[in-house]
């Protein structure tokens, strides 16, 4: 790998792609204080946004819910759940609503694109105690986002997180540090992210957490002077935050509720994201099983056919169930991301929380190649599963798990009727 002689000819570089992504048109927006009703379409691949002057939260319907859709989205990646999120300059009615923001229970914090905010929406920059302007390289398993940390009032449904640090993704902000771009592919445009943003509503209050407080961790937080950004340690309360624990009410967790989906797939479906656990008549824990998560990394154990996977992850940001098993054949390329059993297989796994709860889960795995070939236009594919690692540590409970369930995510340290987070329940 370090020896160039060992390599085949260079593959296509991404520079061309980056140039293409920059061409995604920037919404031409008027002043944020203008009357509602002005709308614009940003491009064929990015759904239209509305530029509105949103009334203060107190005038919105008192509601702790918002609609979630699984649909074609920005580029047609199956099994991606989306919501609309409104950002406002803190304390004002200068706002922008962004649709098709991905709901991600595997991360914490809101990330939107600078290119989708009107120039008039000037958000305050987040600074640390030394006056450094903060920027972030956010790490996802499938790429990174880069941009500055800014403060916004974040409105979702009827809830508001006031003056919350968010990431404003912008590949043109400063110079992307090399330790950031050395992680993998960039997700600095709606097309490459396959969404107009990410709403991280996982079990942690902040994205990086204590590790980024203790020391300057490469490829996480930076302090920037003009175009130069340097890795720095950042206090937890300055880091990009999960909006949920910073709502005034219904702030101990969330419930992602999606209807059951036809095994052969559907073009789209609509569910709900409900805020709070046991705080209203519509968010009781009921008979849901509470699975305690590791307070340091949010994982739990999963056992399947005698194999133990120590890092179970409940992740609406993954589009299938992903685990390594020799019991299922991997599809031929180019579908080798997924399994291709001859017929749909019924499997049963045991989920084990750090609180000692054990829960049997049955699930089905279909032939991904057939599902994609025969139902190519479907955005909802509940039988998708695929391989992970030979080392058998990872079991990703992605979107197929969420169909037909209400999946609770309780935020760390927040009290609920099921005990304090972090936990998941279903």
């Amino acid at each position, binding site marked *: 790998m370090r020896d160039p002689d060992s*390599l085949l000819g260079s593959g296509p570089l991404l520079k061309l792609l980056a140039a293409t992504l920059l061409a995604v048109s920037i919404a031409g927006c008027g002043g944020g204080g203008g009357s509602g009703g002005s709308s614009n379409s940003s491009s064929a691949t990015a759904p239209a946004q509305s530029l509105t002057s949103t009334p203060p939260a107190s005038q919105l319907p008192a509601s702790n819910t918002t609609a979630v859709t699984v649909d074609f989205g920005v580029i047609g990646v199956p099994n991606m759940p989306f919501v609309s999120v409104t950002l406002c300059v803190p304390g004002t009615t200068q706002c922008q609503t962004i649709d098709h923001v991905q709901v991600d229970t595997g*991360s914490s914090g809101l990330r939107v694109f600078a290119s989708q905010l009107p120039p008039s929406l000037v958000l305050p920059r987040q600074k640390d105690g030394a006056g450094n302007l903060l920027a972030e390289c956010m*790490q996802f398993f499938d790429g990174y986002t880069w941009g500055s940390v800014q403060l916004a009032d974040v409105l979702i449904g009827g809830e508001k997180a006031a003056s919350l640090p968010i990431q404003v993704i912008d590949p043109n902000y400063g110079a992307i540090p090399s*330790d950031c771009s050395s992680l*993998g592919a960039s997700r600095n445009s709606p097309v490459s992210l396959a969404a107009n943003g990410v709403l991280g509503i996982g079990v942690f209050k902040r994205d990086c957490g204590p590790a980024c407080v203790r020391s300057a961790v490469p490829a996480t937080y930076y302090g920037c002077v003009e175009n130069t950004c340097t890795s720095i340690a950042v206090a937890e309360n300055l880091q990009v935050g999960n909006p949920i624990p910073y709502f005034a009410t219904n702030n101990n967790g969330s419930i992602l509720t999606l209807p059951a989906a036809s095994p052969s797939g559907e073009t789209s479906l609509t569910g709900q994201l409900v805020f709070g656990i046991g705080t209203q008549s519509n968010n009781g824990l009921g008979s849901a099983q509470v699975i305690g998560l590791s307070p340091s990394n949010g994982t739990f154990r999963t056992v399947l056919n005698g194999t133990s996977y120590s890092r179970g*992850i409940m992740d609406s940001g*993954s589009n299938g169930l992903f685990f390594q098993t020799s019991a299922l054949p991997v599809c031929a390329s180019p579908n080798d991301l997924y399994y291709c059993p001859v017929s749909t297989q019924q499997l049963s796994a045991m989920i084990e929380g750090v609180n000692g709860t054990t829960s049997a889960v049955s699930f089905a795995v279909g032939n991904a190649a057939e599902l994609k070939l025969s139902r190519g236009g479907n955005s909802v594919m509940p039988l998708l599963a*695929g391989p992970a690692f*030979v080392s058998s540590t990872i079991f990703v409970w992605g979107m197929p798990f969420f169909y037909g369930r209400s999946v609770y995510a309780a935020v760390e340290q927040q009290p609920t009727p099921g005990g304090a987070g972090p936990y998941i329940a279903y």
Partner: protein
Amino acid sequence: MRATAHSVTSQAAYTVHLITLPSGTVVREYVAGNGIVFGVAWEGPTLPDLKATLGEAFDRYVAATAMRRTTPLAVSNDALVVFSAGHLRAFAGYAYLPQAVPAGVDASVIQ
């Protein structure tokens, strides 16, 4: 790669460099007798510097994942295999160059 700890274990056909990053992520680099790094595996809170480890193959990794697919398998062909999964605070993955794996060594040692 910046490390807080680094140890080396030698096998018959290759050497394993165990590196601990400042975040606590543990990285194992698999180095053949000819000095070529043919594989890398990681587990921990943050991702490793794959550009430093993969060299020129990094560009092919990036190109293969230009559009997001939200699946752990990033690329798998006869020149490069990359799996990456998890989330901040709990990542795991591995990458290897099938053509650079020493004769007689199974790629499944990379983990």
